[in-house]
């Protein structure tokens, strides 16, 4: 085993982080640095009539839209999110201005004494009342009307899902500087070059006059994909105005109230059933985008593409829309539109099986896509789909068949049990033509005179272990010990743009560039001499090129596959549900580090489970989030999941390093449907709304027994 690349090693950042020596943005010394505190809108939609500022003590500054040297818009996908509000505010928490000063408390007091006069406008808080569609995508195959006509029956159901907070341990934090015409920003982020490009536009400088440094980052889960560009723009503008470094680190409440979350969704699905099979799907998706477009376009694309689940249905029509509401803009969150679709599709197939009197798992497997089948966008599943073997493996591991049968029988007594199993995938890498047309990743390896090798990439270790796994790939290809390979700090002034740390792309795409560069470096290796090797992304030859206009082709070169099972026990007196066990089987291709991958799978699975059960973001009538602290916004702890087992079923991928493909997001997609199916056995009712809380459980138990 020791010669397998997957054999665990001590993570490169382990000692620094476990000993507390690693410095996060809030930990750096404050010498000469000003604190930035942001004044935010208290209204969901309003025109700003006037702002009454108190007298400012010396050394304190107000920074607002008038101080933005370039365009007052942060480039994300589109350019609609202001750095500081213009005349209107569009959600509670939108930044209006920043107060910067040398004392944190005093700066906060000044901010709190500012009075904003609003002329309130009617906000749209319910996505169904929204009339503004930011984006619409769709895909189709076959004649839907004809198939609905021919069907034995048409099954219709609506599925709803709620919001979810990323809950990274380290809050958003950024520091900006302005010196000699160069804007530099450092802080907590996933995508240094996203920040870099956004700053060029806001500061009205060319990209050579921007420098971004990704610092030690305590978790992201997607929450540090787009938002850091906004905060970076704010501190950069402040630094230019004050002539001093300005740092802004959020309070937890501020972070929960004002930063992006998972898109709440509404799925209306029609399924044609003929001769015991689903022959057509008509899926209508509505995502709540929030107040600005940010990343909604790409999240929606992933949701649309995954709207066929893991299945191959002869006739398909998907229409997805991302609608504006006056709520905090929703953005990237692990799974990125996928979890919404797999939850709806898994439950849909389960419910149709019930209606047909079929075993759910058997029924679902009959519809599972296979190698060579078309994808929803007219691409091809180019590789083996290992779902049937994985189902068998996992069933054996957790005793699924026996338990499922046992719990289906009538249960008496105070406690009731249920088990559920979900089947899902994650399209590996950036969606559509993104890698080829937009990201165009570049990677460099630098061999120093001491024969040590540095990996120059813009990808961030946000806890997922990338500085270790990247180094393992290069070390193996070069035949070097791991301590001779390091990953350079992601500083845009000397690392190339290897793309964002998103979409489960880092190992598969950037890791493969590292491997290829290392192979070339090995050929050119001259001891004692400096050498730089550069690799650029090339689309694999087998890919059917994706056409963004027609939304057709291979949206992903390959897929990672997953099967998860969850077993629950509910107290019928309280509705409280405990997890008895959770088991996952994953095909992420070759595993680059077993410990790291296992950690990813466990954490993602739990995040998926709590998305269905524990995590909810209630808002009051004005649109204000009511539970913006960790004593009110609950996420699970280790005590909630006493049994959590992970196995791997690697199907090697030809164009990933040593056969590896996407990993990080996959496990989040299956938790909700597996949990909900287990809950269905307990409450004896089909479910189609998440989160399904303790209160919902008790109410449903009561309704069913009446």
């Amino acid at each position, binding site marked *: 085993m020791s010669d397998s690349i997957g054999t665990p090693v001590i993570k490169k950042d382990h000692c620094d982080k476990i000993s507390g020596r690693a410095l996060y943005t809030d930990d750096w010394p404050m010498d000469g640095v000003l604190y930035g505190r942001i004044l935010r809108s208290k209204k969901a939609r309003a025109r700003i009539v006037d702002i009454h500022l108190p007298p400012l003590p010396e050394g304190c500054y107000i920074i607002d839209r008038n101080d933005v040297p370039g365009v007052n818009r942060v480039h994300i996908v589109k350019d609609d999110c202001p750095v500081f509000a213009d005349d209107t505010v569009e959600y509670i928490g939108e930044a209006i201005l920043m107060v910067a000063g040398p004392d944190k408390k005093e700066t906060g007091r000044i901010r709190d004494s500012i009075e904003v006069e609003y002329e309130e406008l009617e906000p749209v808080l319910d996505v169904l009342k929204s009339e503004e569609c930011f984006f619409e995508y769709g895909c189709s195959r076959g004649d839907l009307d004809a198939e609905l006509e021919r069907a034995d029956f048409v099954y219709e159901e609506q599925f709803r899902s709620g919001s979810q907070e990323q809950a990274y341990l380290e809050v958003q934090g950024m520091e900006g500087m302005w010196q000699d015409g160069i804007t530099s920003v450092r802080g907590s982020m996933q995508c240094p070059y996203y920040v870099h490009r956004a700053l060029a536009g806001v500061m009205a400088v060319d990209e050579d006059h921007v420098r971004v440094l990704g610092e030690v980052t305590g978790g992201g889960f997607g929450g540090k994909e787009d938002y850091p560009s906004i905060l970076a723009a704010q501190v950069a503008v402040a630094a230019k105005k004050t002539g001093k470094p300005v740092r802004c680190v959020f309070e937890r409440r501020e972070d929960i109230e004002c930063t992006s979350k998972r898109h709440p969704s509404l799925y209306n699905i029609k399924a044609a059933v003929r001769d015991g099979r689903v022959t057509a799907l008509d899926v209508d998706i509505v995502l709540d985008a929030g107040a600005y477009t940010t990343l909604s376009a790409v999240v929606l694309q992933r949701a649309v593409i995954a709207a066929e689940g893991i299945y191959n249905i002869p006739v398909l029509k998907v229409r997805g829309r991302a609608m504006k509401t006056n709520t905090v803009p929703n953005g990237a969150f692990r799974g990125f539109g996928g979890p919404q679709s797999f939850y709806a599709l898994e439950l849909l197939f389960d419910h149709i099986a019930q209606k047909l009197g079929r075993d759910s798992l058997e029924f679902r497997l009959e519809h599972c896509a296979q190698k060579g089948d078309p994808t929803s966008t007219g691409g091809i599943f180019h590789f083996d789909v290992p779902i049937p073997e994985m189902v068998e493996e996992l069933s054996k591991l957790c005793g699924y068949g026996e338990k499922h049968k046992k719990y289906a029988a009538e249960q008496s007594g105070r406690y009731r049990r249920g088990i559920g199993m979900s089947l899902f995938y994650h399209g590996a890498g950036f969606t559509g033509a993104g890698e080829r047309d937009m990201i165009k990743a570049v990677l460099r390896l630098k061999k120093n005179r001491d024969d040590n090798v540095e990996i120059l990439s813009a990808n961030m270790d946000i806890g997922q272990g990338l500085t270790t796994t990247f180094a393992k790939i290069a070390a193996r290809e070069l035949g070097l010990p791991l301590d001779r390979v390091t990953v350079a700090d992601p500083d845009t002034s000397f690392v190339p743009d290897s793309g964002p740390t998103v979409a489960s792309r880092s190992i598969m795409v950037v890791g493969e560039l590292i491997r290829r560069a290392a192979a070339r470096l090995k050929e050119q290796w001259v001891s004692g001499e400096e050498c730089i090797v550069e690799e650029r992304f090339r689309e694999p030859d087998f890919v059917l090129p994706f056409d963004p206009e027609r939304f057709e082709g291979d949206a992903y070169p390959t897929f990672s596959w997953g099967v998860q099972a969850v077993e629950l026990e509910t107290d019928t*007196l309280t509705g409280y549900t405990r997890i008895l066990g959770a088991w996952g089987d994953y095909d992420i291709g070759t595993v680059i580090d077993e410990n790291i991958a296992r950690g990813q799978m466990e954490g993602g699975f739990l995040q998926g489970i709590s998305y269905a059960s524990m995590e909810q973001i209630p808002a009051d009538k004005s649109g204000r989030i009511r539970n913006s602290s960790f004593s009110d916004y609950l996420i699970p702890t280790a005590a909630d999941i006493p049994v959590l087992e992970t196995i791997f079923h690697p199907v090697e991928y030809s164009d990933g390093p040593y056969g590896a493909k996407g990993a990080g997001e996959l496990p989040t997609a299956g938790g909700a449907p597996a949990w909900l199916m287990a809950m269905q056995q307990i409450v004896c009712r089909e479910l189609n709304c998440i989160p399904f809380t303790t209160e919902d459980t008790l109410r449903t138990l009561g309704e069913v027994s009446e």
Partner: protein
Amino acid sequence: MVRPENLNDALKTLSRGGMTICAGGTDVMVYPPENARLLMVDRLPELKLIEDLGDAVRIGAAVTFTEGIESPIVPELMKAALRRIAAPAIRNMGTFGGNIGNGSAKADSVLIDFVLDAKLELASIRGTRTPDIDKFYLGRKKLDLAPDELIAAIFLPKPKGSWYYEKVGGREALAISRLSFAGVIDVRDGVITSLSAAFGAVADTVLRFKELEAMLTGKSLDEARAMKPDFIAAYDRAIVPIRGRVSETWRKEVCLNLLRDFLSQNGI
């Protein structure tokens, strides 16, 4: 910060005013009052004792939850509640006195203080008094505690007969109670000699209805079974939950479910 060596010094300091009392710090340190001057009572020897008084246990206010769990003389009913408090690190710091002084109806050890009719020992330089726990709680976060008074100890009667305890939180650990219930019942020769039932996290203070408990006291189990629907209906009328993280409807239903189950478990 002041950290006196003994209770007398602590009370003298407290009487001069302007101090924030800090025992384990698990509340105070989360959002410390600005410019707070802390009076640390965590090491006062007088507040660290657990004593067996025969029918009752005297628990010093600065005894931590972990010490309570590990003590051979703290009643098992109290331990059942202590084990569900937060997580080990917080149980190592959090104290019996602090749980009471916080004034919350969700405090897990306070529910047990209520159901067992605990008395408190309040100390000041003026002397000592020992109010009943239910008289000490005046309302939400309102306590019958003078500025110069310190909670020194809890007199906790030992439960007679059998007890029942349930806590519902949002998760398994580090969970503030969404509802908690404790019941104690003593049955001698088929006759209920005493019964008490307390509900936590339902209203501004822990709820107990002694007049309703009296309905079943002195009754035989057969009589009690016949009265059960009326008894539950009386609690249905008496309990008025507040809306918080969970709805009033859920709180009411779970209160009655657990009360019903408590009686069933005891043959009623």
